[in-house]
């Protein structure tokens, strides 16, 4: 057993243990906290799997924003009634456990039965990389080879925002989501809110810019921007926006709309939907990424803020 494998093994065991605690914890608040630490550990695992892009995304979205969302929900919802229904007991619990073990064993069997020489698209992706003008193959997959998935994914975020909004009450429509912070934020938070956002914007822009060649990209950059925005609101420096605001709507759909527009323009400019003119791929991709980053930041922020409420209140 090499040292690196030893590290991987202990990391895996630790990750599983934290995940197990997140599942089995008594209180939902503890469970959510465990889930956030689990996300951080998972990001480490991704680094060990040579997937820095994914690690960044996992840390930013999978752990960070999701964690914030869940913590907020746990604070609002609490543990519920004391005599909470424990829906599965005794034999049912055992049976469920058996099914779950069977599922795990099945997946493990499938994974272990995979051919020794793994089928891969890496050579193809590497071969076509120069024609995209990009250095990062993951970005090439996201924005060129499988651009349709990324386009639809950015649209999924918009769908989710609409969905979240429709869970508001009728009378709250047109209002603002609740501010993520307290009514009177503490001094340190205000300070952070003043200091960190410019830094966040810098980091976010950097992530997008380097995404073309190095790990990073629109989603990671967007998350950082979203985090900065949320922090500003939490610090009480800005109010959450009204969901009817024209600029907000425009900012929300701008990225996907631009992406879609470039895609349709591809019919004329590059002879295919979502193709880029030869030799100008990188420029187009950077413009799309910039717009997407901004819209993603808005969408993630709105998703984290939740449904509008408190119409007419400050």
């Amino acid at each position: 057993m090499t040292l690196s494998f030893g590290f991987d093994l202990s990391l895996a065991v630790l990750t599983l243990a934290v995940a197990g605690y997140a599942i089995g914890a008594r209180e939902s608040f503890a469970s959510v906290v465990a889930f956030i630490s689990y996300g951080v550990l998972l990001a480490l695992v991704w680094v060990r799997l040579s997937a820095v892009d994914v690690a960044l995304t996992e840390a930013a979205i999978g752990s960070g924003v999701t964690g914030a969302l869940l913590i907020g929900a746990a604070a609002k919802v609490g543990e519920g009634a004391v005599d909470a229904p424990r829906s599965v007991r005794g034999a049912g619990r055992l049976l469920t456990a058996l099914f779950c073990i069977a599922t795990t064993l099945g997946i493990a069997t499938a994974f272990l039965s995979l051919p020794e020489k793994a089928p891969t698209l890496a050579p193809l992706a590497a071969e076509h990389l120069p024609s995209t003008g990009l250095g990062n193959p993951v970005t090439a997959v996201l924005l060129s080879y499988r651009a349709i998935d990324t386009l639809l994914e950015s649209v999924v975020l918009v769908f989710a925002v609409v969905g979240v909004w429709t869970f508001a009450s009728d009378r709250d429509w047109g209002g603002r989501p609740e501010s993520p912070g307290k009514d009177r934020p503490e001094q340190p938070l205000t300070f952070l809110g003043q200091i960190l956002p410019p830094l966040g914007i810098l980091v976010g822009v950097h992530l997008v810019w380097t995404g073309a060649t190095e790990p990073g990209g629109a989603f990671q950059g967007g998350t950082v921007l979203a985090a900065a925005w949320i922090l500003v609101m939490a610090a009480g420096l800005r109010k959450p926006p009204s969901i009817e605001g024209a600029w907000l709507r425009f900012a929300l759909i701008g990225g996907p709309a631009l992406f879609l527009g470039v895609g349709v323009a591809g019919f004329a400019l590059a002879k295919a939907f979502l193709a880029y003119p030869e030799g100008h791929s990188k420029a187009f991709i950077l413009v799309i990424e910039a717009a997407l980053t901004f819209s993603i930041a808005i969408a993630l922020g709105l998703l984290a803020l939740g449904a509008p409420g408190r119409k007419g209140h400050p």
Partner: protein
Amino acid sequence: MNDAALALSTFAYGPQTLAAALGAPLVLMLACASARLRRFGPAYLVVAPLFALAACVLASDSGPLVLDQMIYPIVLVLDPPGALLLGVTSLLWLAAGIFAASSMRDETESGAFVAFWLATLVGNIGVFMAADVASFYLFFALVSLPAYGLIVAQARMADSAGGLYVSVALLGEAFLILAFALLASATPDHSLLISDGVDALPASPWRDATIGLLIAGFGTKIGLLPLHVWMPSTYRAAPVAAAAVLSGGAVNAGVIGLVRFFPWGHAVPVWGEALVVLGMSAAFYGVAIGLTQRNPKTMLAYSSISQMGLVAATLGAGLVAGNKGAAAGAALYAAHHGLAKGGLFLAVGVLSGCGTLRMRRLTPFVGLLALSLAGLPFSGGVIAKLAIKQPLGDGLLGALSTLSAIATTLLMLHFLRRVAALAEPRVSNPGWALITPMFAMIAASIMAPTAYYFAIENHRLVSLDAALFWESLWPILVGALIAAAARRWLERLPALPEGDVGAFAARPFGLFARGGAAADRGEIILRRWPVAAGALMVVAIMISGMGVLKP
């Protein structure tokens, strides 16, 4: 006369006439959707069957009408048994249409009634023309299901009658679609033509299943024992005109089905014998139960069960022997029954509104119609009896047929007595618009079968044959004697529940309800989250396991 018929039968516009016969009621039915056109609804009842009446003369044995712009092309053709039944059926619809139009009072409620009437008419016309399985099934469904609207049109208590009717009708549809799927699958190229299916039937691997399902499916329509349970309550609940077209017209859809779909020329003994036994039992069972009934319409329904039993027995005998003649004979018998029974229902409608005096004047004519069913000399009934004589043979079945004529006489005379009891000294008598259709049916039931018989068989005046005259007269005399002798006794018979065995079959429904409550409980468990999520995992594990655990 014959030459003229021949000339007409090769009429060049035959197929177009078929289209008009179906199209006219269809268009008029659609017209009922418009409030403005709905006002003329009663007139539609009279106009709609005229085209079919024309078609049965003009399009008989002409070329087929093929509409092949559909996934299943529709092929319509009018062969001799089809033309005969179409003729008498459209005549009946015409008469009943006049009756219904004259008795219609409530303008606002008539729209739906007219639409249902016309839909049933489309089905009843089409079923005699359809030469392919798909359109036959379509027309059969049309003649069966919209009739529900006719049955429940009037009586408040009709709910259960309508429900029973539609249940049996749907059961018939289910039997038939299975039978037709088997029939079409057995043809080499999956042809949907009925003739192709029937040709391939004797060699079909599913021959017995197909014929059994056909008998069950069409049996629901002709009220074959024990699928007759719907008939009494349906005819009693339906308005008179509707009962007339259902008992005289719609029922023939079942007859034409059996005629069309049986592999004539190939002996199928088992099913043939079963049909003979069921049919002959119904012939007497119907009379026996009918005698105990109080309501004249119910009695007529039981008479239908009995008469259709004879038709079924004739067809069954033909199936046993592989005798093609049975089909034509049964069709002629059914045609006469349709006219007579339709006329009798109209008569019930006329007489139940009569004063005593008018009743006394009209009853003899109604009696003519009633005894025509038993084969009264000079009536169409003689011809009908003659038509099934050959297929039934001289043996046991022939004797039973004669015996059933005695039984029918008994039932019909008892029926007349029950009708006469309806008379009340009232001022208002039914108008001629109601009486005329009844007389038209009386005339038709006497003349139409005779005319057809001469046209087809080229016989001399058979009914004047002395031997035949006696042969058909004595069962009626015997029947009349018994009726006179047993009059008191008949009056005192206990009234059996309408629908006889059907009345006891309601019990399983209670069981079904209990099963339903269990289903509710099961559903509540199944829709609990852990159970549903567990089921999801089980499905995943099962599908995966099918391959992984395979040795």
